């Protein structure tokens, strides 16, 4: 629903940048992230470039979480058993869930379309109603595709976590392919291989390519058909993929609250860290061609001047670490939601009715979350360096490691804020933890164009991080963020110790 709000709010924000379209060139450096700008000097071209990939990406994340959550999460929780005990077959329950999801997507589409059509009335906008409708379809397509992918992987996975990880992996590969396609002249053909490529190719507002909708529709239909087929074939709670067997040894290494926490986050953390490593290595490996593209762009010298950057490659790498900041913050949000889930499910009771003080448990979970984030930062730095070194770019390792560490404070703030919310309003932990990076991302995209409204940008966490290695990390500023996080966490831990345990 957050995506819905964002999508609806986004077009409304356009008028403020209508007259600032000329500033487009300065944003060229985001090309790898957002796709190649296409006629970005016009409002239409600019809008579609600036908005499409970002929204599609957020929609995709929403889609895969919702798709796997409703189809695998509900089943894991045993809630389907009650449903299926009645005169309802699994295929039918699955079908009805898919229809519900389809309805949600339609609502989302209508809201988006109202927004895009509404934006036509703004001064300086020249696109047809048809184009606006197509634009809305493009924006929602990411959510639609990954709801379908999420539904399909839910059928073959053994647990919700496994389904979400698998879907996220597919999304990651799709996004990397798109980045590859946009990172080098002559690689544009790759765009046809990935949903994000199709989304980029549609260009609904300027020279629309309707053909790009075809693979999207085909993929969604194929996923839905396969989902229904698998749903009617397998047992409730059954799966194609097996989950790993538990160690039969008595007295393994899980001997306390903290080792238990390690065991619980292990799978997710490894999946994310490997994802970060691959993404970073790849981002590093395309530094040369990507920064060559940047250097070609007209406004680039200007950007370099403003950022005080010496080399185009460092400017480019700064953008990739912007991505790392976001990914780490979302990873932190995921780990903190899991912490709350431990309490809500009643599993925490097993520990705190034994001689484990609540804060000790909480401290273990938080320490592990911080370590995973820090490890993520270091891995991002090291893998980017390895990637760029494979192409002899020559940015030193220590600089990239610093950039990696510099990417972690927003995630640490997410952890601190989540602990605070855990103490004072435990039901809101997930919403706040995921909300912070999502909000910051939106503000970062919109806010850079809203001149004179600096306070808005100041509310974004991402705004308080220097884009190392393009800029020098501001350790003082980072320290302030970490201290804020620590203060929030201490207040939250005290509240948590004093309040009642709160169940779902």
């Amino acid at each position, binding site marked *: 629903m957050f995506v819905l709000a964002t999508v609806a709010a986004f077009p409304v924000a356009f008028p403020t940048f209508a007259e600032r379209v000329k500033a487009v060139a300065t944003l060229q450096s985001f090309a790898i992230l957002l796709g190649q700008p296409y006629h970005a000097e016009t409002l239409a071209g600019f809008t579609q470039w600036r908005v499409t990939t970002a929204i599609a990406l957020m929609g995709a994340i929403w889609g895969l979480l919702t798709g796997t959550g409703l189809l695998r999460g509900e089943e894991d929780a045993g809630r389907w058993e009650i449903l299926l005990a009645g005169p309802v077959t699994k295929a039918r329950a699955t079908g009805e869930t898919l229809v519900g999801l389809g309805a949600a997507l339609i609502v989302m589409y209508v809201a988006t379309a109202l927004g895009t059509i509404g934006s036509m009335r703004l001064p300086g906008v020249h696109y047809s109603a048809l184009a606006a409708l197509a634009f809305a379809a493009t924006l929602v397509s990411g959510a639609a595709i990954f709801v379908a992918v999420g539904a399909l992987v839910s059928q073959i996975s053994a647990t919700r976590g496994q389904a979400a990880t698998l879907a996220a992996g597919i999304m990651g590969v799709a996004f990397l392919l798109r980045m590859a396609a946009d990172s080098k002249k002559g690689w544009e053909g790759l765009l046809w291989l990935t949903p994000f490529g199709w989304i980029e190719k549609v260009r609904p507002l300027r020279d629309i390519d309707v053909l790009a909708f075809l693979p999207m529709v085909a993929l969604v239909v194929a996923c839905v058909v396969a989902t229904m087929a698998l749903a009617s074939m397998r047992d409730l709670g059954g799966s194609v993929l097996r989950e790993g067997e538990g160690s039969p040894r008595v007295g393994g290494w899980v001997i306390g609250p903290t080792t238990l926490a390690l065991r619980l986050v292990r799978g997710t953390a490894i999946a994310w860290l490997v994802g970060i490593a691959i993404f970073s290595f790849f981002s590093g490996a395309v530094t040369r061609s990507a920064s060559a593209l940047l250097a070609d762009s007209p406004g680039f010298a200007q950007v370099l001047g403003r950022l005080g950057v010496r080399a185009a490659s460092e400017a480019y790498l700064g953008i990739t670490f912007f991505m790392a900041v976001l990914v780490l913050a979302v990873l932190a949000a995921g780990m903190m939601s899991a912490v709350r889930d431990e309490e809500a499910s009643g*599993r925490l009771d097993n520990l705190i009715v034994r*001689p484990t003080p609540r804060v000790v448990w909480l401290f273990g979970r938080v320490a592990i979350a911080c370590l995973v984030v820090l490890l993520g930062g270091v891995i991002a730095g090291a893998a980017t360096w390895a990637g760029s070194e494979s192409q002899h770019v020559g940015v030193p390792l220590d600089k990239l490691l610093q950039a990696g560490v510099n990417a972690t404070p927003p995630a640490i703030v997410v952890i601190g804020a989540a602990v605070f919310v855990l103490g004072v309003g435990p039901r809101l932990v997930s919403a706040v933890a995921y909300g912070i990076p999502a909000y910051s991302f939106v503000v970062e995209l919109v806010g850079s164009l809203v001149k004179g409204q600096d306070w808005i940008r100041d509310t974004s966490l991402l705004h308080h991080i220097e884009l190392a290695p393009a800029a020098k990390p501001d350790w003082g500023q980072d320290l302030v963020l970490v201290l804020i996080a620590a203060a929030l966490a201490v207040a939250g831990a005290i509240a948590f110790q004093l309040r009642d345990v709160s169940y779902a």
Partner: protein
Amino acid sequence: MATIIETRGLSKTYGSQLALRDLDLDVEEGEILGYLGPNGAGKTTTIRLLLGLIAPTAGGATVFGLDVTRDAPEVHRRLAYVPGEASLWPGLSGAETLALLGRVHGYVDEAYRDELIERFDFDPSKKVRSYSKGNRQKLSLIAALMTRAELLMLDEPTAGLDPLMEQTFRECMRESKRARQTVFLSSHILSEVEALCDRVAILRAGELLQIGTLAELRHLSALTVHVTFGGAVPNVADVPGVSGVSVEGQRLSCELTGPIQPLLERLTRYDVRELLSAKPSLEELFLSHYGGDGGTA
């Protein structure tokens, strides 16, 4: 004999919803206290308060003479708890769960643990995810019993166990009693409470209705008397303690509370053919407290 659990004015409200009001309760060392009450009466609330999982809105409680909130870790070292529906980590195996919970508790009687696994016919090698409800319940029972803790807090511990396992549970409780462990047993299975408990507390809508030994509770409650006469049927309505008199031909039925002597004196003057009197079962007692219709359930 030491008092293990002591609550004074213990109360809990959720918003405007009263869950427990002014509970004064003493549980003595070595006794098994049955804690009864209909759904929503406040049994689980009491146990959570005693475990320090939730904080009282008024009053307080001590366990082993220690404050349940402030000294929670110290209290928890000496007790073991079985929740009504154990929520465990689906990804851990039974053995891993036992190892973890044992380590967290700090002490495990390993020989007894293996014996319990045997007696409860429990397979610890599988993942918790794959256990049936009854098997999960066994797992959390074993995890509690293997600690040989001084105090056992059991919230419907046998929910989901089959009759055979229910027997095993009762044996374990008898062993606990011999070992002078104290047991706080919340249950809906009245036969279990009747078989095991030294004292019974009955709760309704957050308030303690009665507490005492089964004999005391029975004593307080009415004795049902049926008398069949050879000749004339006397009027007993004026005898102290008698109520609910009904006559059907030669057969008289009434309820009697208090001493039996006055009624007997009156009856011996008549030709009594048959005299039947029945103590209410715990089930009848329980039902009579909740406006049940006489106890035939």
